[in-house]
């Protein structure tokens, strides 16, 4: 940051306003230099393409039962390019490729929705709580503490049992808890941001509290929030998979990676390893990719923070 001589600079620069290099530009550059994160990002893009457009590559859907294959899928339902069942079939004779596409899509969506709720609700809640401070902050954070102390998995399972096992219930359940730790993180950051002089400058100028939160606090939380949101996606996917693994998650004919893995695991003695292998592969690759991208984002956005 050298001191520029304005006149010399004026002579060199074009008259139209030039683009600034925002902190995001720098972060993007640093992220692009991180090989593991870039590979993981590519893997994520491929998985997303697979989840949303993979169905176009096959003539089978995941719901049609092929009765001729029932009971003989260990020999007849083998993964093969000739039959068009790229990933083989399951014990009901349904195409596993189509099932995996469907399951990956659902798992991905659960993760993203949970994470989005966390970003919107958690960030605003935490920012408001931290910025207002005092008693309001105390009360708002006690609520979070209380909610956090409830064993969420237990409650979610109870809800699914009580209100029926619907996809909506699952989304609501995941959305309800995912924002809690985000709110805490956002609040902690807000406490340090609100003592910065640029916030004091805004207060001194007469900017309203809500505008200060939205304009001066939240954008400066964005770094932490993005990193945490990325790491929250795989966490949500794991939660959902666990519930589906217990048989409480998504309902047939819908499916998720967790449900597929659960069924594949139960069939492992019947000589159909592909039924476990393919869903597990996508599950593991997706989780690793999210963790690597999250890690890369953390280093890129706040390089000092290591």
């Amino acid at each position: 940051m050298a001191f520029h001589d304005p006149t010399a600079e004026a002579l060199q620069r074009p008259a139209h306003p030039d683009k600034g290099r925002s902190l995001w530009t720098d972060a993007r550059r640093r992220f692009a230099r991180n090989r593991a994160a870039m590979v993981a990002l590519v893997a994520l893009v491929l998985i997303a393409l697979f989840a949303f457009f993979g169905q176009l590559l096959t003539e089978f859907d995941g719901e049609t039962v092929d009765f001729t294959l029932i009971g003989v899928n260990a020999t007849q339902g083998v993964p093969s390019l000739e039959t068009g069942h790229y990933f083989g079939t399951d014990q009901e004779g349904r195409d596993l490729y189509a099932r995996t596409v469907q399951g990956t899509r659902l798992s991905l969506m659960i993760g993203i929705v949970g994470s989005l709720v966390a970003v919107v609700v958690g960030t605003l809640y935490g920012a408001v709580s931290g910025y207002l401070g005092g008693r309001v902050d105390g009360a708002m954070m006690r609520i979070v503490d209380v909610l956090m102390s409830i064993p969420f998995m237990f409650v979610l399972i109870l809800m699914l049992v009580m209100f029926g096992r619907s996809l909506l219930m699952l989304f609501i359940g995941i959305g309800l808890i995912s924002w809690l730790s985000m709110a805490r993180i956002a609040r902690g950051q807000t406490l340090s941001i609100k003592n910065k002089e640029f916030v004091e400058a805004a207060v001194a100028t007469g900017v309203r509290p809500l505008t200060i939160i939205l304009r001066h606090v939240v954008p400066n939380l964005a770094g932490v929030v993005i990193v945490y949101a990325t790491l929250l996606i795989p966490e949500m996917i794991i939660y959902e998979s666990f519930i589906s693994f217990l048989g409480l998650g998504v309902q047939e004919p819908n499916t998720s990676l967790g449900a597929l893995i659960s069924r594949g695991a139960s069939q492992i003695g019947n000589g159909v390893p592909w039924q476990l292998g393919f869903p597990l592969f996508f599950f593991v690759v997706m989780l690793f990719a999210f963790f690597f991208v999250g890690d890369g984002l953390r280093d890129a956005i706040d390089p000092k923070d290591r």
Partner: protein
Amino acid sequence: MSAPILQVNDLRVTFDVPVRGGWPWTPPRKLQAVGGISFDLQPGEVLGVVGESGSGKSTLARAIVGTVPSTGRVLFDGQDLTRLSPEARRARRRDIQMIFQDPLAALNPRLTVGDIIAEPLTTHFPKTPRAEVRARVQALMERVGLLPNLVNRYPHEFSGGQCQRIGIARALILNPKLLICDEPVSALDVSVQAQVVNLLRELRREMGIAMIFIAHDLSVVRHISDRIMVMYLGRLMERAPAPAVVGTPRHPYTQFLIASVPIPDPVLEKARPRPVLEGDLPSPLSPPSGCVFRTRCPKARERCAVEPPPPYDVGPGHVATCHYWDEPTPMVQAAE
């Protein structure tokens, strides 16, 4: 004399400092950062405020701007700011602007320079057309010595001096009546300091803004101020027209401050007597009784420990809070 634009009357700011290791119900200790400051400011006048670090200058500025709670009265244009409703107070804020000590920290890193400078305008006049906002921002950037085509840049792309110019532009966009500069050049390189001070002087001459100019030593303040107020531990030590403070200081603390201003000539600088102020600034949590300066004052006597000195009138417009202001001060010289 016209009506003062700002009248500060017995302003006090007390912070609660939680006792370390105390129980939640242990009463916090009281830290009086500003202990009863009063002064008037005429329209267009520049009041310098001097005192070493920790003497409550920033807190005084914050109390006037209203970002920390205070007691006492702050009359702006005859209106008591401390009694206004929050909404009326907010509307009033456009007439008082502030410049901060750390120029980069005072700018939101996620906003462009254009948005930062425009904020007071878009806050108080949200209906201003975008083109007009932009034109005013760019005109102002030019005025404070920044290239107008840098409006879309971000603060971290600028040097400290340039950041301070951005802060100045933001403070000026609404043509305020009062500008509070809290150590605006302390964080800058010496070469840049002069440029920024000169800019402020020019702006003051052109726009006729009243200013409170805070610094921790006299070398900067004496060139820009009409009057100077010297503070120590949140209290007034001396207040006088700038030439009187520099030429005939009456309070021993001011005399030390004057004596510690370096002389630009290196030969004279080496030869001059170098008095030192012994000891440290006492903790504001437990200020000395009587005169707060007595723990470091070479003239201190018993009376100083029991009776806080009132502001004595010692000359035209010149007050000093020292019982023995008319006696010479023995200066302790630094060991060679």
